[in-house]
């Protein structure tokens, strides 16, 4: 299915924003995809509920556009690596701009019971850019964690953008205009996942809408998945090929260890080549074909049956004709 192997790491560059320079604290951030799914789910839910309840009162999305969701991110910090595992939602009082502390504490307690190692690492929000009010919330969270992180998800769908619309900000004390101020600085992060998480997130992300369940779209979706997987394999194999050609022509010094690994890789093909496999494969192929044929047969015969009944009904002599049983019996 998906090409990345277990514990895949992909560096995502944060999209350009109007915020300050990049961070220099030297912390490495690792983000789990579960957090991203959580945040986007939260945002979608709130947006859908607002749309549902505000139906008829406002036609444009003006009111919804301003709604942001907030929550906490939790995880572990080991030395210089900050790993964000999970997240939960928070209630933000829109008037005063302060968090509901009691709720936060209760949630913390609950999560502590299930995951004793995790603690609150920071908070998240949705939106396209960092706002001034965010700093207040950031400072409020500083008594829970002395240096919280701020995760911003941009919910606007931008088809041309290749990277994840997720940015991680840290707060740093910079001297601006003579007075030290806390400002947000962008940090780089990598996506880190374990096999179980990858499978479940993949499964959730590929849930099809219930009305898009026609056979053609499912087939197309399945084939697209396979297509992209093979494409990635193809590009990697091409790199190895180019490397070998370069080695042969002498541009690259001969590296025996790599050559050995490549030779063992190449020996793995063909992946399956025995008589038994051919037999089993052909048998399964024939079974599938037979089943499709049988289903088609059943469909045809039922359609034919319906047609015959319709003709019978429409051409049936009216009851005034004694013994008239219609012309098609």
């Amino acid at each position: 299915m998906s090409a990345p192997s277990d514990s895949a790491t992909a560096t995502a560059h944060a999209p350009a924003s109007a915020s300050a320079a990049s961070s220099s604290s030297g912390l490495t951030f690792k983000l789990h995809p579960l957090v991203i799914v959580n945040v986007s789910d939260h945002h979608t839910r709130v947006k859908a509920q607002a749309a549902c309840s505000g139906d008829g009162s406002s036609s444009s999305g003006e009111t919804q556009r301003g709604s942001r969701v907030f929550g906490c991110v939790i995880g572990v910090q080991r030395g210089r690596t900050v790993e964000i595992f999970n997240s939960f939602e928070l209630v933000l009082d829109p008037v005063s701009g302060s968090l509901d502390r009691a709720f936060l504490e209760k949630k913390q307690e609950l999560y502590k019971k299930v995951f004793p190692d995790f603690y609150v690492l920071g908070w998240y929000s949705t939106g396209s850019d960092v706002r001034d009010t965010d700093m207040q919330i950031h400072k409020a969270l500083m008594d829970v964690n002395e240096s919280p992180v701020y995760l911003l998800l941009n919910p606007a769908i931008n088809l041309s953008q290749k990277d994840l619309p997720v940015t991680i900000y840290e707060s740093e004390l910079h001297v601006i205009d003579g007075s030290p101020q806390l400002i947000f600085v962008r940090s780089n992060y990598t996506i880190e996942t374990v096999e179980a998480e990858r499978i479940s997130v993949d499964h959730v992300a590929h849930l099809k809408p219930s009305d898009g369940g026609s056979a053609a779209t499912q087939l197309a979706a399945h084939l697209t998945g396979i297509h992209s997987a093979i494409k990635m394999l193809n590009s990697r194999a091409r790199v190895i090929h180019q490397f070998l050609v370069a080695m042969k022509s002498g541009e690259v010094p001969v590296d025996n260890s790599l050559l050995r690994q490549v030779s063992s890789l190449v020996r793995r093909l063909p992946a399956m080549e025995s008589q038994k496999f051919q037999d089993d494969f052909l048998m399964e192929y024939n079974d599938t074909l037979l089943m499709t044929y049988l289903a088609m047969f059943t469909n045809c015969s039922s359609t034919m049956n319906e047609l015959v009944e319709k003709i019978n009904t429409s051409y049936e002599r009216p009851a005034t004709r004694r013994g008239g049983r219609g012309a098609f019996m």
Partner: protein
Amino acid sequence: MAMDAERRQAELIGQFSAQAAALSSAPQLAALVLEATSHPALFAFSELLALPALTKLAGTQYASSLDLLRLFAYGTLKDYKSNSGSLPALLPDQVRKLKQLSVLTLAESTKVLPYDQLMQELDVSNVRELEDFLINECMYSGIVRGKLDQLRRCFEVQFASGRDLTPDQLNNMIDTLSDWLGTSDSLLHQIQEKIKWADTMSEVNKKHQKEFEDRVEEAKKSIKKLNNLSRQTSTYGGMTTFSLNLEE
């Protein structure tokens, strides 16, 4: 996966290369060769072969050590037996290693190795000994992974560590890789065609469905009109016209 075996060897190779670079006299180098070929975890000898110090051994009385190293890098037990006159006698460790290397060479050519062939190559007489050897020496040391099929008396190899390459084998590898790339390219193309086909077919289907619905609507409307018209004449004649309209 495969890389662990290589990584383990990388340390040993580095170690031996450093030692060989430090030594200068022929008998010491010969002893080093002996040590390298008996080491239980070392299966790669190209680096050692490439060292200039060892190539100097050729032509001296210790040339047999160089030949031995070459045998371990590229040859099998069969080669040893046919040339046993010119090569020094092997220690049991070396014999075992040579057997392992022979298994690797065999695994390079075919994926399914029959027991008979293996027994002949490795000079063992019964299946039990062969299987013990395969399990203990080859699979536990991580150079080979596969399934033993006792009923069909064959060994299906799924993965085998690479041996040292002779220069012409490099060309073979490049050819195989380009074939692989060609196949996967055509496969990608075919998948894309299938996706387009699925989309087109569903479009055609939808259009057909829509046409059908339109015709049914039309027929219903014409029937309603006719019904209103023929309400006065509810004779058999009217019924005929009624049924004729349905035939459309």
